[in-house]
């Protein structure tokens, strides 16, 4: 049986790892390659490197860093931020990334998902969705949470899946940085509606939140940043805890 995955996310700005609360107030959290290697040795199942300012500033992503990560780390990693067209995907994969995640670019031009799936296979295409629960339900946001769209979370996730996405990485903007747990209700609905894996993101504060998202949220993987970067939760302890709770994890 497939193990539930624990994925530290490294938000990158100017080559450094940063993590903010609700997408603002960034604090530095160290060298991305060293941090990634440390996580890998501690038992992280995958890593995600997101160039968080790329989309906003129209910057191209960080090929040099990706090459260094690929050379030094022996577990799969995903890169995102600033991937707008097929040639960006090609460059990232050639630099050694295993998967790419697309967010704003996919909402602006959904055909990009089909193009990536057809050219490189669904397995490389993670569609990341930032969504917020509003008065009108879950709405998707662009540009790292700066711009609201008319697209609803569930219909967009379904379309992404139908177009060939390999995974959905759903970040709840309501939960992100608050450390009160993942958006398990929405996650469970996504998992029920989609035929591809769902990665929970936003809200991890303690070990129990991971258990809850794997059980109640039906998540296939859980992503977190600051709780790992600042040592609030250690990955070996987290995995031992999940194992003791009867969840299948790689130890």
């Amino acid at each position, binding site marked *: 049986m497939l*193990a539930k995955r624990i994925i530290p996310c490294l938000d990158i700005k100017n080559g450094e790892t940063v993590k903010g609360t609700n997408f603002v107030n960034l604090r530095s959290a160290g060298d991305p390659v060293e941090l990634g290697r440390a996580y890998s040795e501690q038992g992280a199942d995958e890593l995600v490197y997101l160039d968080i300012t790329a989309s906003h500033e129209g910057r191209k992503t960080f090929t040099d860093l990706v090459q260094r990560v690929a050379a030094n780390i022996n577990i799969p990693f995903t890169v995102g931020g600033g991937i707008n067209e097929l040639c960006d995907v090609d460059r990232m*994969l050639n630099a050694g990334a295993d998967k790419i995640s697309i967010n704003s670019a996919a909402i602006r031009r959904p055909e990009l998902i089909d193009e990536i799936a057809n050219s*490189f296979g669904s*397995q490389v295409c993670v569609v990341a969705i930032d969504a917020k629960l509003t008065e009108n339900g879950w709405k998707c946001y662009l540009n790292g949470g700066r711009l609201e769209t008319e697209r609803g979370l569930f219909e967009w996730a379904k379309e992404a899946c139908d177009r060939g996405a390999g995974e959905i990485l759903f970040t709840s903007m309501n939960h992100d940085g608050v450390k009160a747990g993942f958006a398990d209700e929405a996650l469970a609905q996504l998992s029920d509606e989609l*035929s591809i*894996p769902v990665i929970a993101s936003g809200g991890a504060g303690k070990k129990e939140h991971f258990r809850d998202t794997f059980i109640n949220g039906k998540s296939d993987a859980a992503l977190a940043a600051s709780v790992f970067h600042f040592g609030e939760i250690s990955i070996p302890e987290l995995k031992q805890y999940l194992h003791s709770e009867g969840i299948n994890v790689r130890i």
Partner: protein
Amino acid sequence: MKVAIVDYNAGNIYSVVHALKRLGIDPVLTNSAEELSKADRVIFPGQGHARTTMTSLKEHRLDEIIKGLKQPVLGICVGQQLMCRHSEEGDVDCVGIFDVDVKRFCPTRHDEKVPCMGWNDIRNTKTALFCGFDKPEFVYFVHSYYVPTCQWTIAESDYIQPYSAALHKDNFYATQFHPEKSGSVGERILKNFLNNNDIEKGL
């Protein structure tokens, strides 16, 4: 030691290159029959669509060249699938080293998602490739098609049903999972392939 990686239109060959470099090996990427035949070890990686990758192989007669190799060969992922007789992916005849057909996963429940992506454990490991393995270990898989268990199975995994996580016949070894992405367990497998003397003997 000279290690050659079969260079054709397959995705993410560089992760194999990096994994070998971490083990102190500087591999050559080549589609030349001469270069491949001179190597001590040949790695046949793969990621992509079976029909597309098979077409690329045939363009350079690599299907025949690979089949004729005498030194230890390690197929990875689609590399393993292309070493079989036929694949359902694109309904294509493959290299035919392993006389078994590649099937698509047919989920029976909603939570059995395809592609099968992530860490799964392998068990009943055999041959020098898994030297030192005495319990199930987790390795990293990404695939929608699988090789059923058969007489060449040297490691089993379980997703929807039991299937072949690795195959062996003579000098040919193959894994469905990605040793180059499987952390320290994957490194042990690659080291076995490169350094274990029994691999030379096809054991």
